[in-house]
């Protein structure tokens, strides 16, 4: 997403390698909106994901991941200027990763909470 956000390429096929379903839709719409607004994202988020749950334990098909991500160094720009002076910050993130039929793992759903939620 950080990579696609640099160019506003909301249709980047790369995204579908990592996300599917609802998660992909949310990411696409976020990037589409930046594209529509002529906004690009620069920098990278800081993440430190941890597995919080694995199901079923013996032959996992679903992994839950939690994180306290920080997007204060991953900000939106328009015409070379910050979109506004509201910085990002630390956000609680929960993601569901599921094994796909082709054996790959993809993010199927995720929730990003407000700045300051962790």
């Amino acid at each position: 997403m950080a990579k696609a956000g640099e160019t506003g390429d909301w249709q980047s096929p790369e995204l579908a390698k990592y996300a599917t379903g609802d998660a992909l839709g949310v990411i696409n719409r976020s990037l589409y909106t930046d594209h529509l607004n002529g906004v690009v994202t620069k920098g990278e988020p800081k993440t430190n994901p941890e597995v919080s749950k694995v199901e079923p334990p013996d032959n996992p098909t679903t992994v839950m991941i939690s994180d306290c991500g920080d997007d204060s160094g991953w900000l939106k720009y328009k015409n070379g200027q910050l979109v506004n002076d509201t910085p990002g910050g630390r956000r609680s993130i929960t993601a569901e990763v599921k094994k796909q039929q082709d054996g790959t793992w993809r993010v199927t759903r995720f929730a990003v909470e407000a700045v300051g939620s962790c």
Partner: protein
Amino acid sequence: MLKRLGVVAGLSAAVLVATAVPAFADGGWGFTDCSQYPNPGCELGAGKNPRPGTGNQGDGNGKPSNPGQTNPGTGQANANGDTIIGGNNNLAQCGYERSDYQGPPPGGAQPAAFHVPPKSGAVTAVPAVYRPQREPATAQFAVAQPRFAQAQPPSGAWYVYKCTGPGFADALYRPPVWIADGQPGPVPLPSPAELAAQARNQLRLPAPKIAANPAGDQLVSLPTWLWLDRSSWGDVSATASVPGVSVTAVARPTSVTWSMGDGGSVTCTGPGSPFPAGGDPKSASPDCGYTYKTSSAGQRADAFPVTATVNWTVTWSGAGQGGTFPNMTTSASVAFRVAESQGIATG
């Protein structure tokens, strides 16, 4: 009445600039923020960021933050489902526009997270729009069912929400939300200019397909022919329409600038002539060529990075109107190795 409201709203918006436009999330995750934009998936974080209700944006959370809530009052949606967003007086000239975003409805057959309740008080996500009086044309499209609607059930369309006005000089769209057909109130219909912007946004310009002769390494002092495959050179158009109104944007390639990687560049007003089969290798292209003076030895990977950038003019026409958009560009890069020619091509 409408006019007076417009003035009031405009003043309010102007004041808000200084005080209360905190809304636009600036971080990379901004538009995925569940506290502002409830999305499918947000249920995973339930409890971490308590929100009123579930699967229901009717409380206004679905919209970008809502400074107007501090000043509830006069601007109620009227009985006809008219064009004023209810209870939201400070947000001047806000509305949904149909989006050219293409994707399945969220959650497949269950757009519950985006469900807009039929009638639930003042601040709802009713797809209404307030048009400023100075844009009378935008009100002319009294058509029931625009044809953007997705074919698959549930029928509806993606809308983007934006506020414009004196205080929102750089108004930004919010992420598309799915609104099912048949919601109460009129569906906001785009003006020709808005349709044109959508058409432009739908333009899919091909990346330049670079070709050159010699086909492999270039040689110092030997003319290099530069051209683009014709599949990547030609008019590209896209159309956006509602019944009775159709607007087409056309992008036309006008020039290609070749940055040759050695500091030189050449601009050609056409795609360039392909090198003819059996042509004289020492001949120069009649319309788009370059001759290297130095070898690329010592460059990164011993090659010059070459970029072809195509300049496109973009115009639109329809509904008896027309206009020009800023130019667009596409580009592609290749690496040219340039060898000294002695001993190779002396014959």
